């Protein structure tokens, strides 16, 4: 893929991730548990990693988190998003090569788990209340469930994209 095409594709993917992120932020929380969300923008991170590579996925993720905070989040949650996002990204990078194209849901579930772990750790460091750990079990469960969901979405999308010969 040429440099220009790659750059354009990365910009497009970032825009899509941002849009998903902002729209998801408008959906009211389904359960009264802090930190639980679908994480639909994760689909884009996975797709980018598969189509373009790890470095590119990292770049798209960072820009999305920073601009997402400007557009939708509050500055004080940037730390939590970033901690979760970076940890999830690292887990994705490390595990992706062990799983095939039809096993992206596993990679994504592990990333979801890592995301929530990172978020909880950052939260614990900031609020200095160990009681926050009470949320660890439910955050682990939600990380896996939403991870499987977004991973499957990425898997189906990747299949379609390959058929369309992007």
């Amino acid at each position, binding site marked *: 893929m040429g440099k220009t095409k790659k750059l354009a594709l990365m910009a497009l993917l970032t825009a899509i991730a941002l849009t998903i992120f902002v729209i998801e932020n408008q959906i*009211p929380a389904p359960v*009264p548990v*802090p930190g639980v969300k679908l994480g639909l923008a994760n689909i884009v991170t996975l797709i980018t990693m598969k189509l373009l590579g790890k470095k590119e996925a990292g770049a798209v993720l960072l820009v999305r988190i920073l601009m997402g905070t400007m557009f939708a989040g509050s500055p004080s949650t940037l730390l939590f998003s970033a901690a979760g996002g970076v940890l999830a990204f690292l887990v994705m990078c490390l595990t992706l090569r062990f799983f095939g194209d*039809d*096993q992206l849901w*596993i990679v994504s579930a592990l990333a979801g788990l890592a995301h929530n772990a990172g978020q909880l750790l950052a*939260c614990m460091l900031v609020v200095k209340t160990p*009681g926050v750990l*009470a949320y*660890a079990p439910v955050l682990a469960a939600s990380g896996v469930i939403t991870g499987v969901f977004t991973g499957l979405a990425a898997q189906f999308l990747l299949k379609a994209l390959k058929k369309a010969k992007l």
Partner: protein
Amino acid sequence: MKKKSFLWGLLLALIVAAGLLLYGKLGRGEGMVAVVSVNGEVLERIDLSKVREAYDLDVATDFGRNIVHVEPGAISVTHADCPDQICVMQGKLSSNGIPIICMPNRLVISIEGGDIDG
């Protein structure tokens, strides 16, 4: 490939099941002292067993504003200026329970045992 997927699926399902089963069972504070803190700094310690009349606590900091409702034996957040309103939905916290958290405003209300000194 199929078998590997199945085993991973099983492991992940176990994590989900364990997580849901353990939720609410771990990390419950036992006692009657509610600790209200923002960004790691304790603002108030309230002995809920000594509250006779309900009152509101206005917690306004650099991170945001929450109205904390204190009543005999229970504490809750009735207003938050954050977008997600999760802390309001969490309802009342009484003698035992897991902490109420408002992440954007960095507010945590947890329950501790023991008496307040003095």
